[in-house]
Protein backbone atom coordinates (compact mmCIF):
# COMPACT_ATOMS: atom_id res chain seq x y z
CA UNK A 1 0.00 0.00 0.00
CA UNK A 2 0.94 3.64 -0.31
CA UNK A 3 3.05 5.21 2.44
CA UNK A 4 0.99 4.69 5.53
CA UNK A 5 3.07 6.94 7.75
CA UNK A 6 1.82 10.18 6.24
CA UNK A 7 -1.76 9.35 7.16
CA UNK A 8 -3.64 10.56 10.20
CA UNK A 9 -3.73 8.39 13.31
CA UNK A 10 -7.45 7.84 12.75
CA UNK A 11 -6.84 6.53 9.21
CA UNK A 12 -3.97 4.34 10.39
CA UNK A 13 -6.23 2.83 13.06
CA UNK A 14 -8.87 2.13 10.40
CA UNK A 15 -6.25 0.41 8.25
CA UNK A 16 -5.10 -1.73 11.17
CA UNK A 17 -8.68 -2.64 12.05
CA UNK A 18 -9.53 -3.66 8.48
CA UNK A 19 -6.24 -5.61 8.32
CA UNK A 20 -4.90 -3.55 5.44
CA UNK A 21 -1.76 -3.19 7.48
CA UNK A 22 -0.41 -5.23 10.38
CA UNK A 23 1.07 -3.70 13.48
CA UNK A 24 4.43 -5.17 12.49
CA UNK A 25 4.33 -3.60 9.01
CA UNK A 26 3.31 -0.31 10.55
CA UNK A 27 6.10 -0.41 13.13
CA UNK A 28 8.69 -1.32 10.49
CA UNK A 29 7.58 1.63 8.37
CA UNK A 30 8.20 4.01 11.27
CA UNK A 31 11.53 2.39 12.13
CA UNK A 32 12.61 2.98 8.54
CA UNK A 33 11.51 6.63 8.66
CA UNK A 34 13.26 7.22 11.98
CA UNK A 35 16.50 5.68 10.74
CA UNK A 36 16.57 7.96 7.74
CA UNK A 37 15.78 11.09 9.81
CA UNK A 38 18.78 11.20 12.13
CA UNK A 39 19.51 14.75 10.95
CA UNK A 40 16.42 15.99 12.76
CA UNK A 41 17.78 14.66 16.09
CA UNK A 42 14.25 14.16 17.34
CA UNK A 43 15.01 10.99 19.31
CA UNK A 44 17.12 10.56 22.44
CA UNK A 45 16.41 6.82 22.67
CA UNK A 46 14.79 4.35 20.29
CA UNK A 47 13.18 1.10 21.44
CA UNK A 48 12.83 -0.69 18.09
CA UNK A 49 13.38 -4.28 19.28
CA UNK A 50 10.87 -3.92 22.06
CA UNK A 51 8.41 -2.20 19.68
CA UNK A 52 8.70 -4.96 17.07
CA UNK A 53 8.15 -7.57 19.80
CA UNK A 54 5.05 -5.73 20.93
CA UNK A 55 3.82 -5.46 17.34
CA UNK A 56 4.31 -9.17 16.82
CA UNK A 57 2.41 -9.95 20.00
CA UNK A 58 -0.43 -7.74 18.82
CA UNK A 59 -0.54 -9.37 15.39
CA UNK A 60 -0.59 -12.85 16.92
CA UNK A 61 -3.49 -11.98 19.15
CA UNK A 62 -5.06 -8.76 17.90
CA UNK A 63 -7.68 -6.86 19.89
CA UNK A 64 -9.28 -4.35 17.57
CA UNK A 65 -11.72 -3.03 20.17
CA UNK A 66 -9.11 -0.75 21.70
CA UNK A 67 -8.63 2.96 21.06
CA UNK A 68 -5.04 2.50 19.82
CA UNK A 69 -4.86 -1.05 18.46
CA UNK A 70 -1.28 -2.06 17.68
CA UNK A 71 -0.11 1.54 17.29
CA UNK A 72 3.58 2.37 17.91
CA UNK A 73 4.08 5.74 19.64
CA UNK A 74 7.13 7.82 20.47
CA UNK A 75 6.76 10.05 23.54
CA UNK A 76 8.54 13.05 25.02
CA UNK A 77 11.51 12.02 27.14
CA UNK A 78 9.93 13.62 30.19
CA UNK A 79 7.61 10.66 30.80
CA UNK A 80 9.15 7.94 32.92
CA UNK A 81 9.08 4.64 31.08
CA UNK A 82 9.77 1.42 32.96
CA UNK A 83 13.19 -0.02 32.10
CA UNK A 84 13.75 2.57 29.35
CA UNK A 85 16.14 5.45 29.98
CA UNK A 86 14.40 8.74 30.78
CA UNK A 87 16.60 11.83 30.54
CA UNK A 88 14.31 14.90 30.60
CA UNK A 89 16.83 16.31 28.11
CA UNK A 90 19.38 16.65 30.90
CA UNK A 91 22.88 15.39 31.57
CA UNK A 92 21.93 14.92 35.20
CA UNK A 93 19.54 12.09 34.20
CA UNK A 94 21.77 10.69 31.46
CA UNK A 95 21.83 7.26 33.11
CA UNK A 96 18.41 7.18 34.76
CA UNK A 97 16.34 4.05 34.12
CA UNK A 98 12.97 4.29 35.87
CA UNK A 99 11.61 1.22 37.60
CA UNK A 100 8.07 2.50 37.04
CA UNK A 101 5.83 3.73 34.24
CA UNK A 102 4.13 7.15 34.19
CA UNK A 103 0.34 6.94 34.47
CA UNK A 104 -0.20 8.74 31.18
CA UNK A 105 2.03 6.39 29.17
CA UNK A 106 0.58 3.39 30.99
CA UNK A 107 -2.89 4.57 29.92
CA UNK A 108 -1.72 4.73 26.30
CA UNK A 109 -0.25 1.21 26.45
CA UNK A 110 -3.44 -0.09 28.12
CA UNK A 111 -5.34 1.10 25.04
CA UNK A 112 -3.26 -1.09 22.73
CA UNK A 113 -0.27 1.08 21.81
CA UNK A 114 3.41 0.58 22.64
CA UNK A 115 6.63 2.56 22.87
CA UNK A 116 8.66 3.36 19.76
CA UNK A 117 11.19 5.70 21.39
CA UNK A 118 11.82 8.74 23.59
CA UNK A 119 11.77 12.20 22.07
CA UNK A 120 14.22 15.01 22.64
CA UNK A 121 13.07 18.08 24.58
CA UNK A 122 14.40 21.18 26.26
CA UNK A 123 16.21 20.34 29.50
CA UNK A 124 13.57 19.73 32.18
CA UNK A 125 11.10 21.25 29.68
CA UNK A 126 12.65 24.69 30.21
CA UNK A 127 12.87 26.32 26.81
CA UNK A 128 10.93 27.41 23.74
CA UNK A 129 13.21 26.13 20.98
CA UNK A 130 14.64 22.78 22.08
CA UNK A 131 18.06 24.46 22.22
CA UNK A 132 18.54 23.83 25.96
CA UNK A 133 18.61 20.03 25.55
CA UNK A 134 21.83 18.26 26.57
CA UNK A 135 21.22 15.98 23.57
CA UNK A 136 21.51 18.72 20.98
CA UNK A 137 19.19 20.88 18.90
CA UNK A 138 16.22 19.35 17.18
CA UNK A 139 15.55 20.49 13.63
CA UNK A 140 12.11 21.52 12.41
CA UNK A 141 11.14 19.46 9.34
CA UNK A 142 9.70 22.69 7.91
CA UNK A 143 13.25 23.99 7.26
CA UNK A 144 16.77 22.89 8.11
CA UNK A 145 17.67 26.13 9.93
CA UNK A 146 14.50 26.34 11.98
CA UNK A 147 13.78 25.40 15.59
CA UNK A 148 10.87 23.00 16.14
CA UNK A 149 9.64 25.02 19.12
CA UNK A 150 9.86 23.85 22.67
CA UNK A 151 9.94 22.40 25.03
CA UNK A 152 8.24 19.47 23.26
CA UNK A 153 10.44 20.03 20.17
CA UNK A 154 11.37 16.40 19.55
CA UNK A 155 7.67 15.58 19.70
CA UNK A 156 6.61 18.24 17.18
CA UNK A 157 9.50 17.44 14.84
CA UNK A 158 8.91 13.67 14.92
CA UNK A 159 5.19 14.10 14.37
CA UNK A 160 5.54 16.50 11.44
CA UNK A 161 8.23 14.31 9.84
CA UNK A 162 6.06 11.14 10.03
CA UNK A 163 8.31 9.47 12.62
CA UNK A 164 5.36 8.69 14.91
CA UNK A 165 1.63 8.61 14.11
CA UNK A 166 0.86 10.82 17.14
CA UNK A 167 2.69 11.80 20.28
CA UNK A 168 2.42 13.37 23.69
CA UNK A 169 4.14 16.35 25.23
CA UNK A 170 3.92 18.39 28.39
CA UNK A 171 2.91 22.03 28.61
CA UNK A 172 3.91 24.28 31.52
CA UNK A 173 3.80 27.62 29.67
CA UNK A 174 3.17 26.64 26.04
CA UNK A 175 5.44 23.64 25.52
CA UNK A 176 2.82 21.69 23.55
CA UNK A 177 1.02 24.50 21.74
CA UNK A 178 4.02 26.55 20.55
CA UNK A 179 5.87 23.60 18.93
CA UNK A 180 2.57 22.45 17.39
CA UNK A 181 2.15 25.92 15.91
CA UNK A 182 5.75 25.92 14.58
CA UNK A 183 5.28 22.59 12.77
CA UNK A 184 1.74 22.87 11.42
CA UNK A 185 0.34 20.29 13.81
CA UNK A 186 -2.34 20.12 16.51
CA UNK A 187 -1.47 20.35 20.21
CA UNK A 188 -3.75 20.39 23.24
CA UNK A 189 -2.99 21.42 26.79
CA UNK A 190 -5.76 19.91 28.91
CA UNK A 191 -7.38 21.40 32.02
CA UNK A 192 -5.03 21.18 34.99
CA UNK A 193 -5.82 17.86 36.69
CA UNK A 194 -7.28 16.04 33.66
CA UNK A 195 -4.15 14.02 32.91
CA UNK A 196 -2.14 12.53 35.74
CA UNK A 197 1.25 14.08 36.48
CA UNK A 198 2.46 10.90 38.18
CA UNK A 199 5.72 9.68 36.68
CA UNK A 200 6.34 12.84 34.67
CA UNK A 201 9.63 14.56 35.50
CA UNK A 202 8.38 17.62 37.39
CA UNK A 203 9.11 21.20 36.30
CA UNK A 204 6.48 23.50 37.87
CA UNK A 205 3.86 21.34 39.52
CA UNK A 206 1.00 23.87 39.64
CA UNK A 207 1.32 24.46 35.88
CA UNK A 208 2.52 21.16 34.30
CA UNK A 209 0.03 19.22 32.19
CA UNK A 210 0.54 16.40 29.69
CA UNK A 211 -1.36 16.51 26.43
CA UNK A 212 -1.62 15.12 22.90
CA UNK A 213 0.18 16.32 19.76
CA UNK A 214 -1.34 15.07 16.54
CA UNK A 215 -1.87 15.73 12.84
CA UNK A 216 -5.63 16.26 13.07
CA UNK A 217 -8.28 17.27 15.59
CA UNK A 218 -9.89 13.83 15.46
CA UNK A 219 -6.51 12.27 16.31
CA UNK A 220 -6.21 14.72 19.18
CA UNK A 221 -9.57 13.60 20.56
CA UNK A 222 -8.53 9.93 20.33
CA UNK A 223 -5.24 10.52 22.13
CA UNK A 224 -6.79 12.70 24.85
CA UNK A 225 -9.41 10.04 25.49
CA UNK A 226 -6.71 7.39 25.85
CA UNK A 227 -4.31 9.31 28.08
CA UNK A 228 -6.62 11.21 30.45
CA UNK A 229 -8.42 10.01 33.56
CA UNK A 230 -8.43 10.05 37.33
CA UNK A 231 -5.32 8.79 39.08
CA UNK A 232 -5.10 8.20 42.80
CA UNK A 233 -1.35 8.69 42.66
CA UNK A 234 -1.65 12.37 41.65
CA UNK A 235 -3.19 14.40 44.48
CA UNK A 236 -4.30 17.09 41.99
CA UNK A 237 -5.99 14.62 39.62
CA UNK A 238 -9.66 15.44 39.00
CA UNK A 239 -12.05 12.60 39.80
CA UNK A 240 -14.70 12.63 37.09
CA UNK A 241 -16.32 10.33 34.56
CA UNK A 242 -14.21 9.52 31.49
CA UNK A 243 -15.27 11.39 28.36
CA UNK A 244 -15.53 9.89 24.87
CA UNK A 245 -13.98 12.83 23.06
CA UNK A 246 -13.57 11.13 19.68
CA UNK A 247 -17.05 9.58 19.57
CA UNK A 248 -18.65 12.85 20.64
CA UNK A 249 -16.75 15.01 18.17
CA UNK A 250 -19.20 17.30 16.30
CA UNK A 251 -18.61 19.97 13.69
CA UNK A 252 -21.74 22.00 14.38
CA UNK A 253 -20.75 25.17 16.20
CA UNK A 254 -23.79 27.26 15.33
CA UNK A 255 -24.64 29.78 18.03
CA UNK A 256 -21.45 29.32 20.04
CA UNK A 257 -20.04 32.55 21.41
CA UNK A 258 -16.35 33.09 20.66
CA UNK A 259 -14.47 35.73 22.63
CA UNK A 260 -11.83 37.86 20.92
CA UNK A 261 -9.51 39.41 23.53
CA UNK A 262 -8.18 42.82 22.50
CA UNK A 263 -5.03 42.41 24.64
CA UNK A 264 -3.71 39.67 22.33
CA UNK A 265 -2.98 42.20 19.62
CA UNK A 266 0.57 43.02 20.71
CA UNK A 267 3.14 45.50 19.46
CA UNK A 268 5.44 44.35 16.66
CA UNK A 269 3.28 41.36 15.85
CA UNK A 270 3.84 40.40 12.21
CA UNK A 271 0.99 41.43 9.92
CA UNK A 272 0.52 37.82 8.83
CA UNK A 273 -0.32 36.71 12.37
CA UNK A 274 -2.98 39.38 12.55
CA UNK A 275 -4.34 38.46 9.12
CA UNK A 276 -4.51 34.82 10.10
CA UNK A 277 -6.42 35.71 13.23
CA UNK A 278 -8.89 37.65 11.04
CA UNK A 279 -9.21 34.63 8.76
CA UNK A 280 -9.92 32.42 11.77
CA UNK A 281 -12.61 34.77 13.01
CA UNK A 282 -14.25 34.82 9.59
CA UNK A 283 -14.28 31.02 9.31
CA UNK A 284 -15.93 30.63 12.71
CA UNK A 285 -18.43 33.40 11.95
CA UNK A 286 -19.35 31.81 8.62
CA UNK A 287 -20.01 28.57 10.49
CA UNK A 288 -22.59 30.33 12.62
CA UNK A 289 -20.54 31.24 15.68
CA UNK A 290 -20.96 34.65 17.24
CA UNK A 291 -17.85 36.77 17.78
CA UNK A 292 -17.73 38.82 20.95
CA UNK A 293 -15.08 41.36 21.88
CA UNK A 294 -13.71 40.70 25.34
CA UNK A 295 -11.01 42.11 27.57
CA UNK A 296 -8.47 40.18 29.62
CA UNK A 297 -6.82 43.24 31.16
CA UNK A 298 -4.00 41.48 33.05
CA UNK A 299 -2.66 39.58 30.03
CA UNK A 300 0.58 41.56 29.87
CA UNK A 301 1.41 40.53 33.44
CA UNK A 302 1.10 36.82 32.73
CA UNK A 303 4.70 36.29 31.59
CA UNK A 304 6.31 38.19 34.48
CA UNK A 305 4.06 36.21 36.86
CA UNK A 306 5.04 32.97 35.17
CA UNK A 307 8.75 33.79 35.52
CA UNK A 308 8.31 33.96 39.27
CA UNK A 309 5.92 31.05 39.83
CA UNK A 310 7.55 28.53 37.47
CA UNK A 311 11.19 29.03 38.58
CA UNK A 312 10.10 29.04 42.24
CA UNK A 313 8.42 25.68 41.83
CA UNK A 314 11.28 24.41 39.68
CA UNK A 315 13.93 25.34 42.23
CA UNK A 316 12.04 23.30 44.77
CA UNK A 317 11.33 20.34 42.44
CA UNK A 318 14.89 20.17 41.17
CA UNK A 319 16.37 20.12 44.66
CA UNK A 320 16.09 16.33 44.44
CA UNK A 321 18.97 16.11 41.97
CA UNK A 322 21.80 15.78 44.44
CA UNK A 323 23.90 12.98 42.99
CA UNK A 324 23.01 10.60 45.81
CA UNK A 325 19.98 8.50 44.93
CA UNK A 326 19.95 8.59 41.13
CA UNK A 327 21.37 10.47 38.21
CA UNK A 328 24.77 11.98 37.59
CA UNK A 329 27.35 12.46 40.36
CA UNK A 330 30.43 14.62 39.98
CA UNK A 331 33.75 12.95 40.58
CA UNK A 332 34.98 16.16 42.18
CA UNK A 333 34.13 17.47 45.62
CA UNK A 334 35.98 16.76 48.83
CA UNK A 335 32.95 16.74 51.08
CA UNK A 336 29.20 16.25 50.80
CA UNK A 337 28.32 19.92 50.17
CA UNK A 338 30.97 20.29 47.50
CA UNK A 339 29.80 17.06 45.88
CA UNK A 340 26.27 18.51 45.68
CA UNK A 341 27.52 21.79 44.25
CA UNK A 342 29.73 20.19 41.62
CA UNK A 343 27.11 17.60 40.68
CA UNK A 344 24.46 20.23 40.10
CA UNK A 345 26.85 22.58 38.35
CA UNK A 346 28.07 19.91 35.91
CA UNK A 347 24.71 18.14 35.60
CA UNK A 348 22.44 21.10 34.78
CA UNK A 349 22.67 23.33 31.72
CA UNK A 350 22.70 27.14 31.75
CA UNK A 351 18.96 27.78 31.38
CA UNK A 352 18.07 25.33 34.13
CA UNK A 353 20.65 26.90 36.44
CA UNK A 354 19.30 30.37 35.66
CA UNK A 355 15.80 29.31 36.58
CA UNK A 356 16.88 27.53 39.77
CA UNK A 357 18.69 30.71 40.82
CA UNK A 358 15.68 32.90 40.04
CA UNK A 359 13.45 30.51 41.98
CA UNK A 360 15.81 30.29 44.94
CA UNK A 361 16.07 34.06 45.07
CA UNK A 362 12.32 34.80 44.90
CA UNK A 363 11.66 32.30 47.67
CA UNK A 364 14.54 33.40 49.87
CA UNK A 365 14.09 35.13 53.18
CA UNK A 366 13.20 38.81 52.80
CA UNK A 367 12.12 38.55 49.14
CA UNK A 368 9.21 36.11 49.33
CA UNK A 369 6.50 38.77 49.72
CA UNK A 370 7.90 41.06 47.07
CA UNK A 371 8.07 38.34 44.43
CA UNK A 372 6.35 35.05 45.13
CA UNK A 373 3.37 36.37 47.06
CA UNK A 374 2.99 39.22 44.57
CA UNK A 375 2.96 36.69 41.71
CA UNK A 376 0.32 34.57 43.42
CA UNK A 377 -1.86 37.65 43.73
CA UNK A 378 -1.46 38.61 40.09
CA UNK A 379 -2.15 34.99 39.15
CA UNK A 380 -5.48 35.42 40.94
CA UNK A 381 -6.23 38.53 38.83
CA UNK A 382 -5.36 36.67 35.63
CA UNK A 383 -7.66 33.80 36.57
CA UNK A 384 -10.46 36.25 37.44
CA UNK A 385 -10.14 37.87 33.99
CA UNK A 386 -10.90 34.49 32.41
CA UNK A 387 -13.68 33.67 34.92
CA UNK A 388 -15.43 36.97 34.15
CA UNK A 389 -15.16 36.53 30.40
CA UNK A 390 -16.35 32.95 30.41
CA UNK A 391 -19.65 34.07 31.95
CA UNK A 392 -20.64 35.35 28.53
CA UNK A 393 -18.71 33.22 26.03
CA UNK A 394 -18.00 29.57 25.18
CA UNK A 395 -14.40 29.81 24.01
CA UNK A 396 -11.66 32.30 23.15
CA UNK A 397 -9.80 32.56 19.83
CA UNK A 398 -6.25 33.98 19.74
CA UNK A 399 -3.04 33.46 17.77
CA UNK A 400 -0.91 30.64 19.25
CA UNK A 401 2.43 32.42 18.91
CA UNK A 402 3.59 35.94 17.99
CA UNK A 403 5.62 34.57 15.04
CA UNK A 404 6.36 31.43 13.05
CA UNK A 405 9.39 29.20 13.79
CA UNK A 406 12.59 31.21 14.20
CA UNK A 407 16.12 30.28 13.29
CA UNK A 408 18.42 28.18 15.45
CA UNK A 409 20.61 30.49 17.53
CA UNK A 410 18.46 33.55 16.85
CA UNK A 411 17.26 34.05 20.42
CA UNK A 412 19.75 32.11 22.55
CA UNK A 413 21.67 35.18 23.74
CA UNK A 414 18.66 36.97 25.14
CA UNK A 415 16.58 34.95 27.63
CA UNK A 416 13.78 37.55 27.76
CA UNK A 417 13.26 37.60 23.97
CA UNK A 418 13.01 33.79 24.13
CA UNK A 419 10.47 34.01 26.95
CA UNK A 420 8.30 36.43 24.91
CA UNK A 421 7.52 33.58 22.55
CA UNK A 422 5.10 32.21 25.13
CA UNK A 423 3.17 35.44 25.53
CA UNK A 424 -0.12 33.96 24.21
CA UNK A 425 0.21 30.53 25.77
CA UNK A 426 1.30 31.25 29.36
CA UNK A 427 -1.94 32.87 30.69
CA UNK A 428 -3.82 29.61 30.14
CA UNK A 429 -1.41 27.63 32.33
CA UNK A 430 -1.68 30.19 35.11
CA UNK A 431 -5.48 29.86 35.00
CA UNK A 432 -5.44 26.04 34.66
CA UNK A 433 -7.61 26.12 31.52
CA UNK A 434 -7.61 23.86 28.44
CA UNK A 435 -6.29 25.27 25.16
CA UNK A 436 -5.77 23.91 21.70
CA UNK A 437 -3.35 25.07 19.01
CA UNK A 438 -4.46 24.22 15.49
CA UNK A 439 -2.68 24.91 12.21
CA UNK A 440 -4.34 27.74 10.30
CA UNK A 441 -2.01 28.90 7.55
CA UNK A 442 1.51 29.94 6.62
CA UNK A 443 3.45 33.18 6.65
CA UNK A 444 5.17 34.69 3.60
CA UNK A 445 8.13 32.33 4.01
CA UNK A 446 5.74 29.38 3.93
CA UNK A 447 6.22 28.55 7.62
CA UNK A 448 3.14 27.31 9.51
CA UNK A 449 1.22 29.43 11.97
CA UNK A 450 -1.39 28.31 14.47
CA UNK A 451 -4.46 29.68 16.16
CA UNK A 452 -5.34 28.95 19.76
CA UNK A 453 -8.75 28.06 21.21
CA UNK A 454 -9.08 28.48 24.96
CA UNK A 455 -11.94 26.76 26.80
CA UNK A 456 -13.53 26.76 30.23
CA UNK A 457 -12.13 24.28 32.73
CA UNK A 458 -12.99 20.72 31.63
CA UNK A 459 -14.57 21.97 28.40
CA UNK A 460 -12.13 20.08 26.13
CA UNK A 461 -14.97 18.63 24.06
CA UNK A 462 -16.17 22.07 23.04
CA UNK A 463 -12.79 23.39 21.91
CA UNK A 464 -12.18 20.12 20.05
CA UNK A 465 -15.54 20.55 18.31
CA UNK A 466 -14.73 24.12 17.32
CA UNK A 467 -11.32 22.96 16.11
CA UNK A 468 -12.93 20.15 14.15
CA UNK A 469 -15.29 22.54 12.37
CA UNK A 470 -12.45 24.98 11.77
CA UNK A 471 -10.15 22.30 10.35
CA UNK A 472 -12.78 21.20 7.81
CA UNK A 473 -13.18 24.75 6.55
CA UNK A 474 -9.69 26.15 6.87
CA UNK A 475 -8.09 24.34 3.95
CA UNK A 476 -4.66 24.13 5.61
CA UNK A 477 -2.43 21.37 4.32
CA UNK A 478 0.95 20.75 5.89
CA UNK A 479 3.26 20.39 2.92
CA UNK A 480 6.62 19.31 4.21
CA UNK A 481 9.25 18.13 1.76
CA UNK A 482 11.32 15.26 3.15
CA UNK A 483 14.68 16.97 2.59
CA UNK A 484 16.38 15.06 5.41
CA UNK A 485 16.20 11.51 4.07
Amino acid sequence: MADITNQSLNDIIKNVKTKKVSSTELTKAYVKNIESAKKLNAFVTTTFDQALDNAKQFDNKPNFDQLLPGIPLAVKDLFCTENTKTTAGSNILNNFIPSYESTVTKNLWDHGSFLLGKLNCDEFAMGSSNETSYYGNVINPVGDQLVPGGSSGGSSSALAADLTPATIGTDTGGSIRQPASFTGTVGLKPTYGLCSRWGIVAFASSLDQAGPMTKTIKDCAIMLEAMSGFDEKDSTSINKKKEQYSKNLKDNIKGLKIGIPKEYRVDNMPKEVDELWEKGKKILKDLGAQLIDISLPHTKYALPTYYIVAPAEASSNLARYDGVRYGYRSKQGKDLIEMYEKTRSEGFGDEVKRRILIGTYVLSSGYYDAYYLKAQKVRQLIKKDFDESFKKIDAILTPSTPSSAFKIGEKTNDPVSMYLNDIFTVPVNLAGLPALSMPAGVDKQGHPLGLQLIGKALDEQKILNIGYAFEKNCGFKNEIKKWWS
Partner: protein
Amino acid sequence: MSLDKEKIKHVAKLARISVDEAKVESLTKDLNSIFKFIEQLNELNTDKVEPLTSILNQSLRSRKDEISDGKIREKILKNSPKENEEFFVVPKVVE
Protein backbone atom coordinates in the same frame (compact mmCIF):
# COMPACT_ATOMS: atom_id res chain seq x y z
CA MET B 1 16.37 46.35 42.50
CA SER B 2 19.51 45.04 40.94
CA LEU B 3 21.46 41.93 41.72
CA ASP B 4 25.19 42.21 42.19
CA LYS B 5 27.76 39.46 41.82
CA GLU B 6 28.01 38.85 45.55
CA LYS B 7 24.25 38.37 45.86
CA ILE B 8 24.29 35.91 42.97
CA LYS B 9 27.08 33.90 44.55
CA HIS B 10 25.07 33.79 47.77
CA VAL B 11 21.93 32.56 45.98
CA ALA B 12 24.01 29.95 44.13
CA LYS B 13 25.30 28.77 47.47
CA LEU B 14 21.71 28.44 48.74
CA ALA B 15 20.81 26.48 45.60
CA ARG B 16 23.88 24.25 45.96
CA ILE B 17 25.20 25.10 42.53
CA SER B 18 28.84 26.04 42.15
CA VAL B 19 29.27 28.91 39.71
CA ASP B 20 32.40 29.46 37.65
CA GLU B 21 33.99 32.78 38.47
CA ALA B 22 34.28 33.38 34.73
CA LYS B 23 30.53 32.98 34.27
CA VAL B 24 29.36 35.22 37.12
CA GLU B 25 29.49 38.32 34.94
CA SER B 26 27.19 37.03 32.19
CA LEU B 27 24.91 35.37 34.73
CA THR B 28 24.54 38.69 36.54
CA LYS B 29 23.62 40.42 33.31
CA ASP B 30 21.05 37.76 32.34
CA LEU B 31 19.42 37.62 35.75
CA ASN B 32 19.18 41.40 35.97
CA SER B 33 17.45 41.62 32.62
CA ILE B 34 15.02 38.89 33.71
CA PHE B 35 14.30 40.67 37.00
CA LYS B 36 13.75 43.94 35.21
CA PHE B 37 11.12 42.14 33.13
CA ILE B 38 9.57 40.49 36.20
CA GLU B 39 9.33 43.74 38.10
CA GLN B 40 6.65 45.06 35.75
CA LEU B 41 4.35 43.49 38.33
CA ASN B 42 5.06 46.41 40.65
CA GLU B 43 2.83 48.56 38.41
CA LEU B 44 -0.15 46.70 39.86
CA ASN B 45 -1.74 47.43 43.21
CA THR B 46 -2.55 44.05 44.73
CA ASP B 47 -3.16 45.09 48.34
CA LYS B 48 -6.69 43.73 48.38
CA VAL B 49 -6.11 40.61 46.28
CA GLU B 50 -6.08 37.14 47.80
CA PRO B 51 -3.10 35.10 46.61
CA LEU B 52 -4.02 32.13 44.40
CA THR B 53 -2.66 29.02 46.03
CA SER B 54 -4.53 26.33 44.11
CA ILE B 55 -6.04 26.40 40.66
CA LEU B 56 -8.40 23.51 41.44
CA ASN B 57 -11.84 23.88 42.97
CA GLN B 58 -11.09 20.90 45.17
CA SER B 59 -8.86 20.45 48.15
CA LEU B 60 -6.01 17.98 47.97
CA ARG B 61 -7.08 14.44 48.73
CA SER B 62 -5.45 12.61 51.56
CA ARG B 63 -5.06 8.86 51.81
CA LYS B 64 -4.74 6.51 54.72
CA ASP B 65 -1.30 6.61 56.24
CA GLU B 66 -0.34 3.07 55.43
CA ILE B 67 2.27 1.28 53.36
CA SER B 68 1.06 0.76 49.80
CA ASP B 69 4.17 -0.92 48.47
CA GLY B 70 7.53 -1.76 49.96
CA LYS B 71 10.25 -4.39 49.71
CA ILE B 72 11.63 -2.59 46.67
CA ARG B 73 15.04 -1.69 48.04
CA GLU B 74 16.84 -3.17 45.05
CA LYS B 75 14.73 -1.16 42.61
CA ILE B 76 15.38 2.02 44.55
CA LEU B 77 19.13 1.46 44.77
CA LYS B 78 19.40 0.45 41.11
CA ASN B 79 19.89 4.02 39.85
CA SER B 80 22.23 5.13 42.59
CA PRO B 81 25.61 6.42 41.40
CA LYS B 82 27.22 4.72 44.39
CA GLU B 83 25.78 2.23 46.82
CA ASN B 84 26.95 -0.36 49.29
CA GLU B 85 24.55 -3.30 49.37
CA GLU B 86 21.75 -1.66 51.33
CA PHE B 87 22.79 1.98 51.50
CA PHE B 88 23.42 5.05 49.39
CA VAL B 89 27.04 6.08 49.76
CA VAL B 90 28.11 9.73 50.07
CA PRO B 91 31.44 11.41 50.79
CA LYS B 92 32.48 11.17 54.42
CA VAL B 93 30.39 13.53 56.60
CA VAL B 94 31.52 12.72 60.14
CA GLU B 95 35.18 12.82 61.11
